[in-house]
């Protein structure tokens, strides 16, 4: 134990004298999480939070166009632009603006669209009237097939964006059509029945609103539930990435000690190596825990200063400490492993850095693993960064407790221990420290 403690003291002395290493371990990940949170803020935001400029060419000038416009305006997701420089938007102008990439989406409401909706509503109302034996009818004509609302997108728009806009517009069109239908049925009802008190527009509309949608928190603890946002994803994700990047300084450090000869000195001291290795791993694991705490602090206090949401640590923030310890242990052991199996820094550092990027891509740091193929989702289970991120998400997004992250911690500790044992075995082979 004394030897381990001596090593921790020695590592502390070396650590505080290595300014570049400090920068790499703290400032670079801090910059990384801030930049990534800012860059990914918009893509991570729910569409309810975003406001899109939407071009609208109204060739109809009827109630349908009016209702769609009102619906779009009320949704607060869209800023409807139906005129440019005081001139109403034409189809051609709308397409030109989209092609120029100045706007992302535009819709064209064709001439006669309202008449077509009214005609359809009258047809349905007449059918209802006939079945109910009301006797009254509304005027109808033959259905036109070309009266659809056309949507246009900037060619660079992503499919998910198009789908979302499509669904949103479809909702307003459906609402407008339903509204028209309610009006027509009400009109028929009034024509057949002098008493309009029970069939007015308002009460009919209430029938459509009878069953609504309301999102509620998954947990029954009465606690807040934080949806995934840029900060909730990026701060833990890139903090974990930064922690695993400790592979680079540790790997380099171990090889440098071998090159300088200090590793030979340790090897010549009886029974020193395991204590030295343990001290080194414990020290750097604690550095990782501190690093994680600093990154979380940035998430909590710095992010709001740059107009981003604050990081929330869930209902059991203290459980993040063992989680961070397990992540740090896995990362440090991996660094120790890389430094032990490779002979030169030219081999170890690129391998260490690139392998972390690969592990992070596999593990959901770059893209949530839900978006990966089923095969890649299985491969992700091999990445320690996946277990690390999933464990942290369990705590900060799903409000889990320590019991919910036990398997994550066990995986990370097993991963670290296996690598550590391989490193010790390799080191114990005679002459390991001889260059």
């Amino acid at each position, binding site marked *: 134990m004394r030897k381990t403690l001596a090593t921790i003291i*020695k590592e502390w002395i*070396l650590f505080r004298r*290595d300014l570049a290493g400090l920068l790499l371990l703290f400032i670079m990940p801090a910059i990384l999480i801030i930049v990534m949170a800012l860059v990914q803020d918009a893509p991570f935001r729910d569409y309810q939070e975003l406001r899109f400029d939407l071009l609208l060419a109204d060739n109809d000038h009827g109630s349908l166009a009016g209702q769609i416009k009102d619906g779009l305006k009320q949704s607060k997701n869209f800023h409807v632009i139906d005129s440019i420089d005081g001139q109403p938007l034409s189809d051609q102008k709308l397409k030109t603006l989209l092609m120029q990439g100045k706007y992302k989406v535009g819709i064209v409401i064709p001439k006669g669209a309202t008449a077509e909706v009214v005609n359809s509503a009258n047809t349905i109302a007449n059918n209802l009237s006939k079945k109910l034996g009301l006797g009254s009818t509304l005027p109808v004509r033959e259905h036109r097939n070309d009266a659809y609302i056309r949507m246009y997108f900037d060619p660079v728009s992503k499919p998910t964006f198009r789908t979302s806009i499509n669904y949103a517009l479809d909702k307003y069109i459906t609402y407008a059509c339903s509204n028209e239908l309610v009006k027509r049925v009400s009109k028929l009802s009034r024509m057949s029945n002098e008493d309009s008190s029970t069939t007015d527009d308002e009460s009919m509309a209430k029938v459509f609103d009878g069953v609504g949608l309301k999102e509620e928190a998954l947990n029954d603890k009465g606690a807040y539930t934080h949806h995934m946002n840029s900060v909730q994803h990026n701060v833990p994700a890139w903090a974990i990435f930064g922690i695993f990047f400790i592979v680079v300084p540790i790997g380099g450090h171990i090889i440098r000690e071998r090159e*300088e*000869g200090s590793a030979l*000195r*340790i090897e010549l001291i*009886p029974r020193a190596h395991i204590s030295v290795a343990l001290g080194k791993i414990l020290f750097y694991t604690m550095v990782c825990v501190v690093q994680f705490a600093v990154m979380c602090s940035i998430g909590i206090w710095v992010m709001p200063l740059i107009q981003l949401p604050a990081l929330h640590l869930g209902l059991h923030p203290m459980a993040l400490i063992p989680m961070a310890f397990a992540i740090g242990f896995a990362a440090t052991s991996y660094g120790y492993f890389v430094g032990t199996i490779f002979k030169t820094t030219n081999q170890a550092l690129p391998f260490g850095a690139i392998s972390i990027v690969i592990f992070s891509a596999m593990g959901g740091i770059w893209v949530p693993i839900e978006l990966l193929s089923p095969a890649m989702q299985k491969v992700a289970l091999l990445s320690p960064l996946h277990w690390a991120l999933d464990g942290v998400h369990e705590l900060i997004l799903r409000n889990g407790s320590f019991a919910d992250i036990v398997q994550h911690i066990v995986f990370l500790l097993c991963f670290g221990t296996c690598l550590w044992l391989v490193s010790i075995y390799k080191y114990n082979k005679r002459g390991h*420290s001889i260059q």
Partner: protein
Amino acid sequence: MPFAIEIDGLHKQYKGAWNPALDGLSLSVKKNQVMGLLGPNGAGKTTCINILCGLVDADSGSARIYDMDCSRDTLAIRRMTGVVPQQIALFYNMSAWENFMYIGRLYGLQDNIVKERAQNLLERLGLEKHADKRVGRYSGGMKRRANIIASLLHEPQLLVLDEPTAGVDVQSRAMIMSFLDEYHKRGNTILYTSHLLEEAEQLCDEVVIIDEGKFIVNGSPKELVAQTAGCSRLEDVFLHYTGHSVRD
């Protein structure tokens, strides 16, 4: 048991090497003796030292220190042996004092004992004023002296030095030689390799010349000079036995 070191028929060939590093080498070092292990580059001196301190396994033959097998009793041997490697086996970003405290603790020594021993050795080897300076900022001679101190903190009975004065100025070399002589006179055994034959002539009770992994000749420097026709210095003897061709 009069021998501190006994080597018998030692053979070692590294993977991929054309020739063996050691080819049946046998030699012995008496207790309280200063033995110089001499040979040109590639003679097998460092391999021999690495086998003695358990850093490398021999392919065949035996190496014993104080009657303990070097391949089996490595831990016990390392407790009683101090090794000064060719490399400066210290942490460059730490001061000499911090290095010695750390190394002493790894040997399991109490801090007060390490401090006392390190202080004495620093004074003896002229580094007391530089103890708080980082080793990386030392001159070559200072690094060599600090390297020797680090190997002596656990007070070994046998000191093995692999070219301890390589690249060192005259003053530092004189100080190291004087220190080693004093250390020997306190009843300790020294095995020492060097390319500086004057140094060996001055310090060693006996020298053994090896070449291409084989024993060539041994004896006291004076005896060897006297026995070898036409030689007036140990360097002449060395060249007589190992030839004038340049080694890589």
